[in-house]
């Protein structure tokens, strides 16, 4: 058996153990503790989330007052309907510049029969319909809004086009990172870049005052090709990142990947048991019966585990009574963590 196979086997074994453990944990959750079952998802609304939101709200209010004091909003001149259009024209707020840009990039479209193209007859063009820039620009805005509203359905259609199996069952409610779905990310980047470029295009008169060389031609080329190239770069970049995993690895790379994998998984587990929420209030240590028996600082189980110093003693002296979880203000599932560590240790993995 080669080293590769051995590594593979260890890796698979660990995977199995973790899956099994997670399954057990989920299955026995109800009887493990009714209280815990209620705390499966997220944090309690009161006081955790309310406190956090209140603090955030106060912080943002402070920011508003700070900005108001130091950057007061401008007062414009009084309106004068007889004055005609000012130059440069007054601009809308930044979030409406894209709509302004839609109106500006549009041009009059004449739809008719070009009879004057026929030689020798000397006929006049027949004009059927004139689509003015105004109408056209407004329609483009409606189209953009429609595309935004229709995103879930467009996503489904594109997904079905790329992969017929792509459907509700596989993707039901699952969030996916952009790297796993480069096409969607590229489309999103295209949309964003187009909004930005339309906004930039809409202030062309103001740009021309300071940079005369950036004229309307340059801007329209940028508006046309800029978003496309952004989307292409996003796609190529994400697709390459995605396929990097498929490259053959050297032994050293594989070893590093293996070690990193263990570290990552460990961090992920710690996150899952909410260990990272500990702010060291010490309630768990105060109530821990093992520590009571052993004396003040002899066997500080939880502290030692957090310091990654469990040499086995801390891990194996826990009697899993659950008092620590009961008093913990952060609902850290300490026993589950200890149990998992024990399971992993007995299955031969050294974590």
């Amino acid at each position: 058996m080669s080293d590769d196979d051995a590594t593979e086997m260890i890796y698979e074994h660990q995977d199995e153990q973790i899956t099994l453990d997670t399954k057990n944990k989920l299955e026995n959750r109800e009887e493990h503790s009714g209280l815990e079952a209620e705390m499966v998802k997220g944090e309690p609304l009161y006081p955790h989330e309310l406190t956090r939101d209140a603090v955030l709200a106060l912080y943002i209010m402070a920011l508003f007052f700070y900005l108001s004091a130091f950057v007061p909003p401008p007062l414009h001149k009084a309106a004068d309907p007889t004055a005609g259009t000012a130059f440069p024209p007054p601009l809308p707020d930044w979030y409406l510049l894209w709509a302004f840009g839609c109106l500006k990039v549009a041009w009059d479209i004449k739809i008719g029969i070009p009879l004057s193209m026929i030689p020798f007859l000397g006929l006049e063009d027949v004009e059927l319909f004139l689509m003015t820039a105004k109408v056209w620009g407004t329609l483009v805005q409606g189209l953009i809004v429609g595309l935004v509203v229709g995103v879930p359905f467009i996503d489904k259609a594109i997904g079905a086009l790329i992969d017929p199996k792509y459907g509700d069952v596989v993707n039901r409610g699952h969030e996916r990172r952009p790297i796993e779905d480069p096409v969607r990310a590229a489309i999103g980047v295209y949309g964003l870049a187009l909004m930005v470029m339309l906004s930039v295009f809409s202030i062309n008169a103001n740009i021309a005052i300071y940079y005369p060389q950036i004229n309307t031609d340059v801007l329209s080329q940028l508006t046309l090709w800029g978003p496309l190239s952004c989307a292409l770069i996003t796609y190529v970049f994400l697709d390459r990142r995605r396929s990097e995993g498929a490259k053959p690895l050297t032994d050293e790379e594989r070893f590093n990947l293996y070690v990193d994998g263990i570290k990552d998984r460990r961090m992920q587990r710690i996150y899952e048991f909410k260990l990272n929420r500990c702010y060291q209030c010490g309630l768990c240590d105060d109530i821990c019966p093992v520590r009571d028996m052993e004396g003040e600082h002899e066997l500080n189980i939880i502290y030692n585990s957090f310091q990654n110093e469990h040499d086995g003693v801390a891990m194996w002296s826990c009697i899993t009574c659950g008092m620590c979880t009961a008093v913990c203000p952060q609902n850290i599932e300490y026993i589950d963590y200890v149990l998992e560590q024990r399971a992993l240790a007995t299955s031969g993995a050294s974590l």
Partner: protein
Amino acid sequence: MTKVTFGYIIRAVHHWSAHFMVASVFLHMMRVYFVGAYRNPREVNWILGSILLMVTIFFGYTGYLLPWDELGFAAGSIGLEMATSIPAMGPLMAQIVFGGTQLTGDTITRMYWLHIFVLPLVGTILIIIHMALVWIQGEAEPH
């Protein structure tokens, strides 16, 4: 407008919070798009969210039109032109939103009514549904 005691601070906070509101709605929407959080069964919430984006933008529009200064007047002219340019429905929409096909005193009244009554009502109802759906569908579950 500049003479009321502490009026300047109320105006400035109103101004800045409006900008932050629109920015946060945009950022929220971007995040939802890029993590694919609009997929089944959350399409309805995405559509509600897009409508809320429109409501927010319209809030901003009526808000900076209301001072009826140079900028507000220009914005009003553009909005009116856009409304009237819509085929068939145009004049009716101009009548409803701007109070006529010309910019008059009626326009300000309409904008005020939209800004302080219609949009807050629609916005609040939609936000309640938006949040309730998050709760009911169980993406995030407060206790």
